[in-house]
C-alpha cells in the first residue's frame, strides 16, 4: 500500500504511513534548558509528510513549529524519537553527512529574508551552488534562471537593501531552491511582508509544491493555510489537530461545512 499518491479529500497526514513519507517524524521530543529547569519545545510529535505536498505548520509562537523545521533540516537532533527523510535516519548521520544532506536535500527560507547584505541578488543565489562545488559559470547560469523564475531577472545586480521586502523574500526562495532540493522548508516566510506580498510569496511556494517539491511552511497566516494541502496545528509542543485544508476549502465553498476546526 502506498500513501505517496496525492491525498484524497478527507484523508489527512495522520493516515500517511511513516515509512512511506518523504519526511517522517516519530515521537520527537526536544527540550531546552531554561533557568534552573527545562522547556519542552516538542512533546512527542509524530508526523508523516508525503512527497510533493505543501504542509502548513500553524500555531502560536513557541508552539514548536520552528523546532520541528530545525529537526527536519538536521540543524538539531531530537532528544528522543527520530526523524526520517527519504528513509534515512538523521540521528545516525555524521556532521559531514548532515552538511551534505542540507546541501542537497533541503532548501530553507527564513523569516527575516536574511540575505547577505553586500552580495547582489544573483550572488546570494549562487552561494549554495558554490557549497556543492558547481563551477562559477554554471552557478551564474542557474542563479539567473532561478531569479527569472521568481520574477526578478531585472533585479539581478541589486543588493538586498535596494530590494523591497517581498523581493528579498523571493530572492531567498530562489536561493533555497538553487540546488533543486526535493524538500523546501520555510519558517514564517511572510511574517515580515504585507498581505499582498505575502499572497505572492505563498503563491510561489504553492507553485513549487505543484511542481513536485515537498513544501513545509511554518507560520500564522491564513494565506498559508489556504494554500496548503495539509494543515498541522501545534500547541505547547504537541500536534493539536491535523486537517486537509484543500478538502475543507472545497467543502466550505460548496456550503456543506468541512473538517476544518
Amino acid at each position, binding site marked *: 500500500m502506498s500513501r505517496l499518491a496525492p491525498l484524497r479529500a478527507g484523508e489527512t497526514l495522520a493516515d500517511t504511513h511513516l515509512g512511506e513519507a518523504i519526511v517522517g517524524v516519530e515521537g520527537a521530543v526536544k527540550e531546552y534548558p531554561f533557568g534552573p529547569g527545562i522547556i519542552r519545545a516538542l512533546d512527542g510529535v509524530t508526523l508523516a509528510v508525503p512527497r510533493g505536498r505543501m504542509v502548513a505548520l500553524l500555531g502560536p509562537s513557541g508552539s514548536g513549529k520552528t523546532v520541528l523545521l530545525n529537526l527536519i533540516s538536521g*540543524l538539531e537532533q531530537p532528544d528522543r524519537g527520530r526523524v526520517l527523510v527519504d528513509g534515512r535516519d538523521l540521528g545516525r548521520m555524521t556532521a559531514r553527512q548532515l552538511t551534505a544532506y542540507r546541501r542537497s536535500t533541503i532548501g530553507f527560507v527564513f523569516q527575516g529574508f536574511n540575505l547577505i547584505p553586500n552580495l547582489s541578488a544573483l550572488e546570494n543565489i549562487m552561494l549554495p551552488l558554490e557549497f556543492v562545488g558547481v563551477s562559477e559559470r554554471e552557478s551564474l547560469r542557474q542563479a539567473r534562471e532561478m531569479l527569472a523564475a521568481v520574477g526578478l531577472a531585472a533585479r539581478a545586480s541589486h543588493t538586498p537593501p535596494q530590494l523591497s521586502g517581498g523581493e528579498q523574500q523571493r530572492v531567498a526562495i530562489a536561493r533555497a531552491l538553487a540546488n533543486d532540493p526535493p524538500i523546501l522548508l520555510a519558517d514564517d516566510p511572510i511574517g515580515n511582508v504585507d498581505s499582498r506580498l505575502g499572497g505572492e510569496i505563498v503563491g510561489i511556494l504553492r507553485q513549487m509544491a505543484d511542481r513536485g517539491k515537498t513544501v513545509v511552511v511554518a507560520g500564522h497566516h491564513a494565506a498559508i493555510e489556504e494554500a496548503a494541502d495539509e494543515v498541522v496545528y501545534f500547541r505547547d509542543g504537541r500536534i493539536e489537530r491535523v486537517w486537509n485544508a484543500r478538502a475543507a476549502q472545497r467543502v466550505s465553498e460548496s456550503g456543506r461545512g468541512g473538517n476544518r476546526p
Partner: protein
Amino acid sequence: MDTVWNGFRDVFRSRIRSVLVILILGLTVATLVTLIQIAAGIGQVNRQLQAELSTLIEVRAAGSTAMGKGADPLPEAIVEQIEKVPHVVKVEKFLFNRSDNPGGRFPVWVVVGLEPGKTIRVNSHGEVGTPTVFEGRSLEPDDLGKAVAMVGQIWAAEYEARTGRPVRIGTRLTVEGSEIPRPAEVEVVGLYRAGFVFGDSQVIVPFPLAQQMTGKEGKVTNVFVTVDTVGNVEAVEQGLREALGEAADILVGRENVRVLSEGLAGIQANATLSAAVATVAGALIVLLTMVLVTRQRTWEIGMLKAMGASGGDVARQFVAEAVALGTISSTLGLALFALMGPRVGEVFLSGARFAVRLAIPGFSEQSAAELPVRYGLSLAVVGYAIGMAVLFGAVGSLYPVMRALRLRPAEALRHV
C-alpha cells in the same frame, strides 16, 4: 565569486569601522617597520664598532689628553717601532693641537693633522667619531702636500668658513693664548659633522701642514694602531709597552667599545621591544575586530550552515577577511613608512637619545641622524609587511575559525 572572495569583500561591509581599523593597523605596520629598520641600523653600527674599535689601540704621549695637551708630543719615529710589532696591520698618526678660544662660541678649537686617505678621525675626551662630510669633500691622498682643510660645522659657523673659500687658521683666531705659532691660509675643501661638539669644533688639515703650523715638526700626539684580530690585542698591547716603554700611554679601546656597545644595544633593545609591542598590538586589533565581526554575524554563520556550508566554508570566508584586512593595512603601512618613516624614526631616536647620552657622552642628534636606518622600500621591508599581513590574518582568524567550527547552526539562528 567564492567564499574566499566573499571574505575579501566582507572587509568593507562596515566601512567606517574598516577604515578606522585599517588606519590604525597601517600606522602600526609603519611604526613597526620603522622600528625594525632602526634596530637593524643600530645593530649594523654596533657590529661595525665592535669590529673596528675592538681591534684599535691608541698610543699617546704619557700623561697627555686625547687632544694632545698635558705632555710633549712623541717623536714621529715611533711609528716605525709600532709598525714592527707583530699583528699590527695599520698605523695612523695624528697631531691634535687644542687651542683655547675664550671669546668664541665654543671655548676650545682643535687643529687635527692626519694622513689624507687614511681614517678621518676626530677626538675628544674619550670620544672618538668618524666625521660625515655634508658639504664639499673629504681629504684625499693628493692633498698631502697642499694647504687644504676640512672644517667642523661649529668651527665653520663661528668663522663663516665655506667650501672653496680660503681661510687663515691662526690669525683669524686672534685670541690670546692661541697656540698656532705659524698661521697658514688654507682652502676649505669640505664641511663635516662629527656628532659631538668637540668633534665639530675642529679643523682637519694634512699631517705635515699641521706639524708646520703648530711648530711640532717630527712629532705626533696620537697614533691609532689596528690589530689583525681581537684575540691578538693583548699581545700587541704588550708588544707596544715593551717597544715604547714609559714614554707612551697605551690605551686599549675595550672600555669605550663596551660603553658604546651597551648604549647602542640599549637603543636596539628598545626598538626591538617596541616593534614586538607593535606586532602584538596589531595582531590584537585584528583579533578583536574579527571577534566583533563574527559575533555580529552569528546569525549569518548559522544561516550559511543551514544552507549547507561546512565549518571549513565559513572559516575560509573569515580567514580571507582577516588576511584582507591585514594585507590592506600592511600596504597602507608601507606607504606611510615611505612617507613618514624618517619622522617616526626621529621621534623614537630623540626619545632614546637622552638615555643614551648618559651611557655615551657626546651621542647627539647628529649621531642619531647618522645611524644607517634605511627608510626606503626594500625587499626586506616589503617582506616584513607581507609577514605582518599573514601574521595578523592568522591571529585574527583564530577566533572566527574556532567559532565557525564549534557553532551549532540552530543556536546561531536563534541569535538575532
